């Protein structure tokens, strides 16, 4: 009897969590259906999705901070993308290439994005409560200014003498700018070896700086832990000189198979570490601390075993990840989490929950909102850099126009809402949204004999999911208000 109850309850819970994640569930179903009817091999789809993930994830992750700060979905990230594109144009016209070119882009677009973000934040502060509609309109407005700059001012007012970039006649920038040979794959082709080298140097500098500052301020040195960390890093660095390791790390792309293997190895090592920490460090008996490590090891084992299944193996060897780009995506995920633990992040949360409470707690609401917008704009501009260096062709007048829509739709597909968003939802959303994006035209041409239907369908999905979730959010807010009102009406009656 009790068991039956439990079963019913857990079934109930499962149903409820399915209902709460109905958008995600719907898209999973759509994606599976799409993949099944696309008529292409799964590995083709997976390859495409991984490419698109590397391209777009950063932009979607740029949306999270404004949501936390109560600004809603920042349609204004288009402005950040525009900053990046202005930077790319100048860098290309000056003739910088490769990593130098990319770094130049970052150097130019970051201050621009901060300036734009500050202006957008100011505007949002003037239109509190309707940031989203302002952002939408602002995106179009900024697009107009951008086109004015690129079609008339460049060449017309600002002299640029570069026949590969400027329209014949000397006024206005060409429709497409080919990035091949200058910054295409500039980030994607940074090898693992150079990443490790750079990280090692950074660590060395930080260690030295810490030592010096502690010496100067005459604080305790903690020499042992510092040196231990540095020594560990040196060992890792030394390992890179082993020829086999060196050739492996010399690559810039990591085969998905290798990535999975490495992850499994990492998980197994972590499990051993946990076990050792529990038994030796905290001196607990084996029976108390075996559960997590063993579970972890089993999962790692199963995943590793799965790589030997032919179908999965074929997918895994078809996909190769650009390491540096994926690393940056991971870093931005950590950044989004880390910022919540800072004072600024806490302030943002408070502002997001209630501006009045935040104000009475002594938080400068307007400033916090501006900072959140600035961060989002800067991240968006970097995201657009990543996007364009991977794509390799820069559509001067179209590259930015759908940035906001696609990023926001991705985030919403992952189950986020206007008030709640996190990294997990962003990543899941990018995967689902872009899977659908890849398979929709293929399936439509398979099913209806017309790829056009699929194209329109995916645009419809993009707009539709935004409309749906905005409507559901507004609905919820009203229901909540009514509830509160009913409660406050009921309260005096009781007393």
């Amino acid at each position, binding site marked *: 009897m009790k068991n039956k109850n439990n079963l019913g309850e857990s079934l109930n819970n499962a149903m409820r969590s399915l209902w709460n994640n109905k958008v995600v569930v719907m898209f999973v179903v759509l994606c599976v259906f799409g993949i099944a009817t696309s008529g292409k091999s799964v590995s083709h789809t997976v390859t495409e999705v991984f490419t698109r993930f590397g391209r777009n994830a950063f932009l979607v992750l740029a949306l999270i901070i404004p949501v936390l700060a109560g600004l809603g979905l920042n349609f204004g990230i288009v402005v950040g993308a525009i900053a990046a594109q202005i930077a790319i144009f100048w860098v290309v016209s000056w003739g910088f290439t490769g990593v130098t070119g990319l770094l130049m882009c970052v150097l130019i677009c970051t201050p621009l994005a901060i300036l734009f973000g500050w202006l957008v934040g100011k505007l949002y502060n003037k239109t509190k*409560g309707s940031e989203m509609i302002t952002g939408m309109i602002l995106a179009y407005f900024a697009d107009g200014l951008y086109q004015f700059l690129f079609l*008339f001012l460049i060449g017309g007012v600002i002299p640029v003498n570069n026949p590969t970039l400027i329209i014949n006649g000397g006024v206005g920038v060409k429709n497409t700018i080919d990035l091949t040979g200058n910054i295409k794959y500039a980030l994607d082709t940074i090898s693992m070896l150079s990443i490790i080298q750079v990280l090692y140097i950074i660590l060395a500098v930080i260690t030295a700086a810490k030592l010096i500052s502690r010496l100067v301020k005459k604080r305790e040195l903690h020499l042992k832990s510092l040196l231990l960390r540095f020594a560990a890093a040196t060992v890792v660095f030394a390992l890179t000189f082993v020829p086999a390791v060196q050739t492996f790390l010399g690559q810039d792309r990591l085969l998905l198979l290798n990535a999975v293997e490495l992850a499994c190895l990492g998980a197994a090592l972590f499990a051993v570490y946990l076990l050792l920490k529990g038994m030796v460090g905290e001196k607990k008996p084996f029976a108390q601390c075996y559960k997590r490590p063993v579970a972890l090891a089993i999962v790692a084992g199963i995943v590793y075993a799965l790589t030997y299944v032919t179908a999965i193996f074929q997918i895994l060897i078809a996909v190769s990840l650009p390491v540096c780009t994926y690393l940056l995506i991971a870093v931005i995920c950590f950044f989004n989490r880390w910022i919540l633990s800072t004072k600024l992040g806490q302030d943002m949360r408070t502002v997001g929950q209630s501006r009045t409470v935040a104000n009475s707690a002594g938080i400068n609401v307007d400033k916090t909102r501006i900072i959140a917008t600035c961060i989002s704009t800067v991240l968006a501009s970097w995201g657009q850099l990543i996007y364009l260096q991977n794509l390799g062709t820069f559509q001067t007048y179209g590259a930015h126009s759908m940035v906001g829509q696609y990023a926001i739709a991705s985030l919403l597909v992952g189950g986020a809402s206007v008030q709640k968003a996190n990294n997990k939802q962003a990543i899941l959303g990018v995967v689902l949204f872009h899977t659908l994006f890849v398979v929709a035209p293929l399936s439509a041409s398979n099913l209806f004999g017309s790829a056009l239907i699929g194209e329109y369908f995916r645009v419809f999905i993009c*707009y539709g999911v935004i409309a749906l979730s905005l409507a559901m959010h507004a609905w919820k807010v009203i229901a909540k208000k009514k509830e509160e009102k009913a409660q406050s009406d009921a309260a005096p009656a009781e007393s």
Partner: protein
Amino acid sequence: MKSKLKSAYQAIGLPRLIISAFFLIVLIMAGVYNIGIPALLGDVLRRWGMYGVLVLAMVPAIQCGIGPNFGISLGIVCGLFSSLIAIELNIAALPCFASTPVLGQWCSMLFAMVLGALIAWFVGVAYGLLLNRVKGSEMTVSTYVGLSIIAFMNILWVTLPFKSGDIKWPIGGEGARNTISLENSFGELLNKTGGFYLIGSEESGGLFIPTGLLVFFFLMCLLIYLFMRSKTGKAMTAAGANPNFARASGINVDKMRILGTAVSTSLGAVGIITYAQAFGFLQMYNAPLMMGFHCVAAILIGGASISKARISHVIIGTFLFQGLLVIALPVANKVLVGTDLSDIMRMIISNGIIIYALTKAKGGTASNEE
């Protein structure tokens, strides 16, 4: 004197002052560059009537409290659909109109308008029900409802089995054409009705007065004016201006909002048909995507806010906005040769004015309901 100036300035408002000044400047520049002013003015009048009804659709929406109706695309697609039906049935060339082709054209257009308005009414009621659930964020929701309906109808335009040669691609191609000629149905019907050259002639680029079009536009304005002055219209305005007060005086606020939305959507359907006949083509697919924004911008330029609009705002705003675009285009082409500035200008002006209106709105939402 100073206070008088100040009050005049406040009555006109900064954006209208800038736009009017701009309008005059480009007009003078057109004269300086020796561009045929009569033809330009004729074009201004044509565009005025062309966009007028679409902009008029904003009035009931703003007055009933849902704010500027960015979702006017709902009405637009209804109008497009009914026009397609009228072409498909080939009403203009029915045997009974063989002796009087003009009558056939009229029937074709009126059929499209009535059918479009009717479909749009039902769509508008459903849309109003949705907007009642999302009070306070009507603008955000309606923008995306507008965008998604266009994308959705794109799928339909591709798949609907139309047979008429005017609609289908001549060879190959799927679904309806991008632009569908109205030559065989009701193209330029209103424009030509009573239209005449005030100055010059067609060859010399004279000033053409599209009498029928303007009369129709003003007639629609008058109808909406009378509607807004009627008991229902007043109740609707009250519901939009102060929902709590309206509720206290026994007005069903939600019903009034639905009514306003339905009227607005129906006007959208009639508006796009007016637009299409003046243009001579139906523009399918993504062409109407941004039309909602332009309509909102026009009425805001006319002096409306996101919670208050009058018929005069429609008339002034459409004239200024469209007139400016029409005149600026050839002037810009003379100044900066070989480029199309008008689209960019439209983008900057229309979105700039909407942003300006948003910053002026207190509390940020159209409805004051707490």
